[in-house]
């Protein structure tokens, strides 16, 4: 039943198509606006995140760089210490060698040098003066026994003259080892005071005292030393 002004099918379809395309266009326009706003928000957010992460990365690498710096310093310091120790050890070695050589020379001296007897006499005197006793015990090398006895006889009167004391001597049966460089050990006051005047001992004392001088002779003065008195 057609009323006046009603549309036929084709017209209805046309109208619908027009409406559909109109709605579609409106929707597309709104969609476009939404996309543009979304892009803007995206850009803002992205810039914020990038900025934040850049700051974080910078901070992280700063820290790393500082740590590496510290590691480097530690390694350098360690290396310095190690080399310093090595130098010191090497120097010590040479000093030891000197002492060894001196020791060997001493033995030779004691066994072959004619001045040995005079040395013994002086050592005996020195020891007597130190002890200031009247009864002493002397320990020496077995092969030195005669030299020592003779030396004592020469030394005793000098001692008496200087101190007014008369020294009586006993010889200990425990001789110094044959390998030792010589010299004597004198004991007094009932073996309670002992003076070790062996050549080794004298060498030891001498090298201790001379150590600074030897070191300076070998290696030059220390660069950082300020006081020499």
């Amino acid at each position: 039943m057609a009323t006046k002004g009603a549309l036929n099918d084709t017209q209805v379809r046309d109208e619908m198509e027009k409406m559909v395309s109109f709605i579609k266009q409106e929707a597309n326009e709104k969609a476009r606006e939404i996309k543009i706003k979304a892009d803007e928000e995206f850009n803002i957010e992205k810039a914020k995140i990038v900025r934040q992460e850049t700051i974080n990365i910078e901070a992280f690498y700063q820290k790393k760089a500082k740590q590496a710096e510290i590691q480097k310093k530690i390694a350098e310091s360690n290396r310095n210490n190690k080399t310093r120790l090595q130098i010191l050890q090497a120097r010590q070695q040479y000093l030891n060698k000197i002492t060894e050589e001196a020791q060997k020379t001493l033995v030779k001296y004691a066994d072959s040098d004619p001045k040995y007897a005079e040395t013994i006499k002086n050592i005996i005197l020195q020891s007597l003066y130190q002890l200031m006793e009247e009864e002493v015990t002397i320990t020496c090398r077995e092969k030195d026994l005669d030299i020592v006895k003779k030396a004592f006889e020469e030394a005793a009167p000098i001692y008496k003259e200087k101190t007014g004391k008369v020294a009586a001597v006993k010889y200990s049966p425990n001789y110094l080892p044959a390998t030792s460089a010589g010299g004597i050990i004198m004991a007094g006051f009932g073996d309670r005071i002992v003076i070790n005047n062996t050549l080794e001992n004298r060498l030891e004392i001498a090298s201790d005292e001379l150590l600074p001088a030897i070191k300076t002779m070998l290696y030059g003065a220390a660069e950082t030393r300020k006081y020499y008195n």
Partner: protein
Amino acid sequence: MSEQIIDSKVISSHNLYLTEKVESLLQNKISWDSISSANIITSEQASIISKGEPTPEYIDALMNVAENVSTVETLQHTLALVDDATTKNVSLLNNFDEKYLNTLIKLLSKDDETIQLLAGRIIASKLSNVYHVTPVDYTPVFQWVTNLLDSENMDVVDLASQYIQGYLSAIPLRTEFYRNCDGVSKIINVLVKRSPNSQLQYQLIFSLWLLTFEESICAEINKTHNIIPVLIDIAKSAIKEKIVRVVLQAFRNMLEKAPGANMIPMLGNKMVPFCETLLGRKWSDSEITDDLTYLKEELSKNIQKLSTFDEYSTEVFSGKLEWSPPHKSEQFWKNNAERLNENNYELLRILTRLFSTSTDPTVLAVACNDLGQYVKYHPEGKKFIQDIGAKQHIMELMTHEDPDVRYQALCATQKYMLHAW
């Protein structure tokens, strides 16, 4: 990279001006073989074109023709084919590099309108992919399209505005468009003087909105082009919701990105009452209500801040009176009218001097308003007003040519006469 979610047919689904021309010219057959025998394209390319399958090689062959041939019909046909293929198969635009774009840009200067419009359309489709802009000099494109806005043919103006929507979708190009061509002035010209229909209004304001995404543009666009009152007027009389929608979006961008430059002109153009009126209407799009609320609140927050006496006196000293918040605020006058007496009536003297020196109707209107308000809230000052000759000036201005000035002068006189006994 994202796919084209937007249906690029949105570009000209309602405007059949170009479509009709294209349909008719595609009826003519072009002999591609003769072109290949002229050694412009290879015979292989000729057969690809004849087959008509939209592949990158097809586009390549067509663009080869476009670059090297100068017969109008061939160019029209070629461009029509390219446009058709790239509309149906948007991924083909990914292959558009500098060479193709430069070919198209050169074609914009050909005399034939169809060629120009087709070339412009293809460029718009290409630029609608917002993320990646091929580095080419687009200034000729912008200048061409904005000149089209001056065309007598409204269909052409409509197409131009659609193309501009496309071009401005490319984010990096917005500043270039603003600075290197007369775009904004011509857009406003169309909006104000050419009585555009709703769709054209929407498209033009949409383009302006795209420009407001750039902070540097927001800071100066109103100063240079005075778009705020233009847009407010359009929004007030708009029938379609989408026009109000884009206007509000543009305002929101301007206020968010450059409040310093836009707060005062917006307040001066009575945007707060405008928002309140619109809030009274029912909108189907909730984003409109959101934007209106935002604008109203931001502006209201700052009215108080900006209505200080110091602001007012700096303005008077500068001589550049505008409709800034203090002038219209009754509260302001109630509190501060007497302060105009300070420093031996300094401000009053300046206002009076402005009557004689200024020819700007805004300044004169504002000055009248100010003196009227002063007298209203501080009647004792009437004698002084008369003595310095301000009253004389106001009465003279009642016959000024500018209606706003006359109105303000009349109001001021009325206030003056109020307690004349």
